[in-house]
């Protein structure tokens, strides 16, 4: 499997596999960046309704094309049909959420199930038709890569490029609408129209992804990359870029994986690769990751206990908290009998002094940039300049020693 995987990664596994890998990567980039604003606008699930609403369009397009005398398998025709019903589904969701008392989640549930059900009925009817080549239509559910043609890859490439260009062009209005729609409206942006463009983008990505990953899984490619990207950046532009890259990598690696062994489905593998990146990020991302949060909390707890212990020493109060004792013992600030060591006394005096300086600083400096930094833990030297500290020291008098025999 390994060499086969490497071959696939280097596009050496044959024409079809290379086509699929490139197509999946392009689709991933478009879906990741296009899905970013869906996620930021907190409307991720609308994409689920849109995706399911493509199915009746596929069926209807097939029937129409057969009726016109074709074989009903023209990809562009099928995609056009799916886009039309997806748009109808989208408009219905919008309308229900805006004009009726139904909340958006209920509207999504209704549209999703009804359109999907209708689509399945159409596919069943099509199976019984005598005309046309109906085999393979159901591959739009979960995607199929076996028969991918160069023409299909071109559809993905062109559609994906248009989607990415739209994201780039409209990133400012879409950011503003996602962050602060009221301000955006007051600023003169047409919020409704920008929302529709954003959803149109999602629809476009869904439609071009139908062939490759299918309508059920394309939603994952829209949502998971931006959610994953959010763990690594605090900027909107960052989320767009990283989500695009993550989507592209998932598509490429997923396609290569599925090409490296027989009968591994492409779409599901791509989604699983996506999920793997997500899992890694939620656990190990610096800042927002679970592990980072645990470590940060523990470090903070130790700092609090150390500070409390030192202040207790400074005031000559007994320490009972076991964690405080452990923390102080470990840094050799107290002896086994809980009496302060030389270092402990020095540190305690310093902590007490810092506390007193802060007290004065918070009284004197009304600037929040300074007084807002007081958390009982931050040394004042990191906030004020030496001459400012000297001024405070003149107010509180010279250094004092504390604790034990002097």
């Amino acid at each position: 499997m390994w060499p086969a995987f490497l071959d696939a990664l280097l596009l050496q596994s044959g024409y079809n596999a290379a086509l699929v890998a490139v197509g999946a990567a392009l689709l991933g980039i478009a879906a990741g960046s296009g899905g970013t604003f869906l996620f930021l606008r907190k409307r991720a699930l609308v994409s689920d309704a849109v995706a399911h609403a493509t199915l009746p369009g596929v069926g209807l397009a097939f029937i129409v094309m057969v009726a016109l005398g074709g074989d009903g398998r023209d990809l562009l025709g099928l995609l056009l049909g799916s886009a039309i019903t997806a748009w109808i589904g989208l408009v219905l969701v919008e309308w229900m959420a805006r004009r009726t008392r139904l909340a958006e989640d209920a509207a999504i549930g209704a549209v999703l199930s009804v359109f999907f059900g209708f689509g399945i009925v159409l596919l069943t009817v099509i199976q019984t038709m005598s005309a046309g080549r109906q085999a393979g239509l159901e591959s739009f559910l979960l995607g199929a890569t076996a028969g991918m043609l160069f023409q299909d890859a071109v559809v993905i490439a062109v559609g994906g490029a248009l989607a990415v260009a739209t994201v780039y062009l409209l990133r400012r209005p879409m950011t503003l609408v996602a962050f602060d729609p009221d301000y955006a409206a007051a600023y003169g942006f047409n919020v409704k129209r920008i929302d529709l463009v954003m959803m149109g983008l999602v629809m476009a990505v869904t439609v071009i992804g139908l062939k490759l990953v299918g309508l059920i899984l394309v939603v994952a490619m829209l949502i998971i990359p931006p959610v994953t990207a959010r763990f690594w950046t605090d900027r909107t532009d960052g989320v767009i870029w990283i989500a695009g890259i993550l989507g592209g990598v998932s598509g490429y690696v997923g396609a290569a994986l599925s090409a490296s062994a027989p009968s591994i489905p492409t779409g599901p593998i791509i989604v699983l690769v996506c999920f793997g990146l997500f899992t890694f990020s939620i656990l190990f991302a610096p800042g927002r990751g679970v592990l980072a949060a645990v470590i940060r909390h523990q470090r903070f707890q130790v700092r609090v206990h150390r500070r409390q212990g030192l202040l207790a020493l400074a005031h000559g109060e007994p320490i009972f908290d076991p964690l405080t004792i452990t923390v102080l013992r470990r840094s050799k600030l107290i002896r086994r009998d809980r009496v302060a060591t030389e270092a402990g006394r020095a540190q305690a005096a310093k902590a007490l002094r810092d506390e007193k300086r802060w007290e004065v600083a918070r009284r004197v400096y009304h600037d929040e940039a300074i007084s807002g930094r007081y958390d009982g833990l931050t040394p004042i030297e990191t906030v004020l300049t030496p001459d400012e500290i000297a001024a405070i020291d003149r107010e509180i008098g010279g250094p004092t020693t504390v604790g034990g025999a002097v």
Partner: protein
Amino acid sequence: MTAASLELAAEGGRTLHSAIDADSPLSIQGMTVSYGEKPAVFSVDAAFPRESMAAIIGPNGAGKSTLLKAVLGIIPTLSGKVSVFGEPVEKARRRIAYVPQRASVDWDFPTRVIDVVMMGLYRELGLLHFETRRHRDMACDCLERVGMANFAHRQIGQLSGGQQQRVFLARALAQDADLYLLDEPFAGVDATTEKAIIHVLKGLKEENRTVVCVHHDLATVTEYFDRVLLINVRKVADGPVDTTFTAENLQTTYGGRLATAQIDQLQLSLA
């Protein structure tokens, strides 16, 4: 117009709406806004003169924020006309800066302080321009004016409530507008921030700009503002603070919700 003359006018069946003042920074005529079948704002007329600093006052649910949003076209109106410097709002957008309520956005949004202020420059940036050093300097200037220059690169989620409000104000400053509309800028902010904000707003007024705030703290009205609009769904009164912000008008606006003792504490000069 006093209450008595209003009644007379109503009896005469003539229009109650005063003609739009062509030059006024903001003039509202007969505005009605409704959620469902219940009007939140009913037939309100008001005009705010140049270089004034006005407060919109009224109890909770009186339609203060709704009025502001309807003026800006954020929510649809049932009737009424708004003109900004004699033009319809759509044509005067670049002269208006809006500061929404702090609680109206998600502060975990992936953006930094400087990026939020930069949003005030989007009109200038358009769709294609890159952010240049000049834009960043302009944004930093606005942050400096609200005392937040040191916070430019913080993620907005790390800010205190008062700091968030200052960032919103800085974004409005970046627009360099002539009319500033603020929705409860002092709600839930610390005393220092309140002072900083009022300092900036008074500065705007001195630069011949007009400031209109939805305001909830009756105790600071006479100190901060020179005009008030009292509403409780309908307009109660509108005019200079010394003649309009009276015990009688407050009683009408708040009904039984404001105890006489509270009004006494405001030490108003009774008109």
